C-alpha cells in the first residue's frame, strides 16, 4: 500500500520535458498529411515527439485556445468570433499556410453525370433538389453525406456557396466515412478533401468537375495545373495556427514542412504545395 502512494507521487513528479513534445490537432482534411510529415520529421529530429489528433478545424482552433494543442491545423481561415476569444484571453496567434487543398464532390459512378454547376450544387445542398431526376433523369432520392458543423470543410462549402445545409444532410465523422457511405449508396453525394480521392479511394466513385457562370469550362479538383492557376471553385489554403509565444518550440516542425522534402510529401499525399 505504501509503495502505491510513493509510486503515485513519483508519477506526478516525473512530468517533464514539455519542450520536446509538440501537440498538433484539428482538421480531418489535414490530419493524414500531418501524420506522414511527422513520420519523416521523426527521422530528422528523433528527440522531438509529435502527437497528432484529427477532428475538425474547429477542434484544432479550440484546442489551441484551450491550451491543449501547440499547432492548430485548420482548413479554413480563423473566424472573427474565434479571434475575439483569443483576444479575450490575451493570446497572440500567428498562422502559416503549408499547402493547398481542393474540395472534391463525389458521387457513385452509376449516376450519369460528370460535371455539375455551382447553382445545382447549391440547390442540392440546401435541400431544394431532393431527387436526382431533374439533373440526371434517374428517379432516386438525393442523399447528402456531409461533415459535422465543426469541420473546416463544412464551413468552407457553406460559406463559399452562401447557403445553409439542409438538416437532412448526414453529418459524418470524417472524410473517409463519407467515401465509404457513397461507395455503398448509389444515390449519394458528398464532399471530401482532394487528398482523399487521389489514391486508393476505391472503385465505384466518381469525382465531379465543377463549372460556373464565370468559368463555363468544368474543372476537376484533380487537375494540378488549373489549381496552380487558382481556377478551381472550391480550392483553399490549409492553415496552421500557433501561439506566437510558442513559436520557438514548434519552429523545427514548420521549418521541415518548408523544405523540399516536406513539400514533396505534401504533393505525393494528393495536396498542392504552396506557390
Amino acid at each position, binding site marked *: 500500500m505504501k509503495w502505491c502512494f510513493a509510486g503515485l507521487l513519483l*508519477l506526478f513528479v516525473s*512530468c517533464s*520535458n514539455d519542450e520536446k513534445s509538440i*501537440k498538433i490537432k484539428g482538421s480531418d482534411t489535414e490530419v493524414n498529411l500531418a501524420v506522414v510529415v*511527422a513520420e519523416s520529421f521523426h527521422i530528422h529530429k*528523433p528527440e522531438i515527439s509529435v*502527437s497528432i489528433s484529427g477532428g475538425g478545424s474547429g477542434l484544432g482552433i479550440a484546442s489551441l485556445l484551450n491550451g491543449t494543442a501547440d499547432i492548430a491545423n485548420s482548413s479554413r481561415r480563423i473566424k472573427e468570433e474565434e479571434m475575439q476569444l483569443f483576444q479575450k484571453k490575451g493570446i497572440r496567434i500567428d498562422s502559416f499556410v503549408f499547402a493547398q487543398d481542393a474540395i472534391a464532390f463525389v458521387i457513385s459512378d452509376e449516376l450519369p453525370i460528370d460535371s455539375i454547376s455551382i447553382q445545382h450544387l447549391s440547390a442540392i445542398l440546401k435541400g431544394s433538389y431532393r431527387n436526382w431526376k431533374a439533373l440526371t433523369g434517374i428517379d432516386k432520392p438525393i442523399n447528402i453525406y456531409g461533415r459535422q458543423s465543426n469541420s473546416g470543410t463544412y464551413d468552407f462549402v457553406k460559406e463559399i456557396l452562401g447557403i445553409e445545409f439542409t438538416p437532412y444532410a448526414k453529418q459524418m465523422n470524417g472524410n*473517409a466515412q463519407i467515401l465509404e457511405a457513397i461507395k455503398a449508396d448509389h444515390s449519394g453525394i458528398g464532399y471530401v478533401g482532394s487528398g482523399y480521392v487521389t489514391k*486508393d479511394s476505391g472503385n465505384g466513385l466518381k469525382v465531379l468537375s465543377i463549372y460556373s457562370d464565370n468559368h463555363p469550362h468544368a474543372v476537376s479538383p484533380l487537375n494540378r495545373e488549373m489549381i496552380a492557376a487558382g481556377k478551381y471553385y472550391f480550392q483553399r489554403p490549409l492553415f496552421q495556427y500557433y501561439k506566437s509565444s510558442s513559436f520557438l518550440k514548434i519552429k523545427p516542425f514548420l521549418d521541415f514542412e518548408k523544405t523540399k522534402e516536406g513539400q514533396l510529401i505534401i504533393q505525393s499525399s494528393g495536396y498542392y504545395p504552396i506557390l
Partner: protein
Amino acid sequence: MKKKILYIFNWILLTGSTVIVTLFLGVILFDIFSKGLSSVSWSFISKFPGNGMTTGGILPAIIGTFLLTIVTTLFAVPFGVTCAIYLNEYAKPSLLTNIIRASIRNLAGIPSIIYGLFGLALFVQSLRMGTSVLSAGLTLGLLSLPYIITTTEEALKRIPNSMREATLALGATQFETIRDVVLPKSLPGILTGVILTLSRAAGETAPILFTGVAFYINTLTASLNQEFMALPYHLYMLSTQHNSIETVRPLAYGTSVVLILLVFTMNIVAFYIRFKHRTQE
C-alpha cells in the same frame, strides 16, 4: 396434441434464445479472428505505424494502453481499497453510510463519457495537467473507483467476524487486524475485482477521447504529460477517421484481435485467481 406442440414451441424458444446468444459471441470472435489473425505478427506488435499509418504496427498504442493502465491502477487501487476499508471496517452502519454505498454502486452505472467530461473539467482544465497520459489515466481511475470499492467491499464482507475477533482478542489494534488478517485473507477477492475492473478500463475509449489520446504519435510516450495512442482509440480511428479505410482494414482487424486478446487474458487471470481461491476454501 396441442399440448405437445406447446411443449416443443417452448423448448425451441428457450434453447433458441440461448443458441442465438452463444452465436453472437461466436460470430464476433469468428469474424474478428478469421480476418484479423493474419495481420498479427511480431512486427505488428513491435513496430511503429508507417506510411501515413497504412502499414507497420501498433507498438505506440500498446505502450500507451499499458502506461494508461498503470496510471489508472496506481490511482484507483489505493484509493478504492482504502475507501472500501473505511466503509466496511470503520464507518458506523448508519443511514448516511448506506446512502453513500448505494451512490457508489450507482456511480458504476453512470455512462463512461460523463467521466470523460469530469476528467476534462477537473484534470485537464482545473488542475492544468493538459491532455496527457496522466489526465486520461486519472479519468479512467475515477471510472474504476466505484467498481473497485464495490468488489473490495464484497471481498471484505466475506471475511467472517470471528477472524477479526481472533486478533483483536490477542491485543492487536484494529489497524493491525486489517493489515495482518483482513487484507491478506481478502487479497484474492480484491485482486479478482481489480483485474476485472482494469480490463474494462483498458478497453474504454469514451473517457480518454478528450483527456489525452492522440491519433498518432511519432515517438513512444515517455513522460506523463505527453499525449499517447491507445489500442481501443486506435481501432476507432482506423475504422472511422483514417483517409483510406479500406487499405487499413486489415490493421483495424489486427488491432481488434490484440485488444480482445489483452482483455480476455486479463479476464482469464482474474477468473483463475477466483477459481483457485474458491477451491482452496
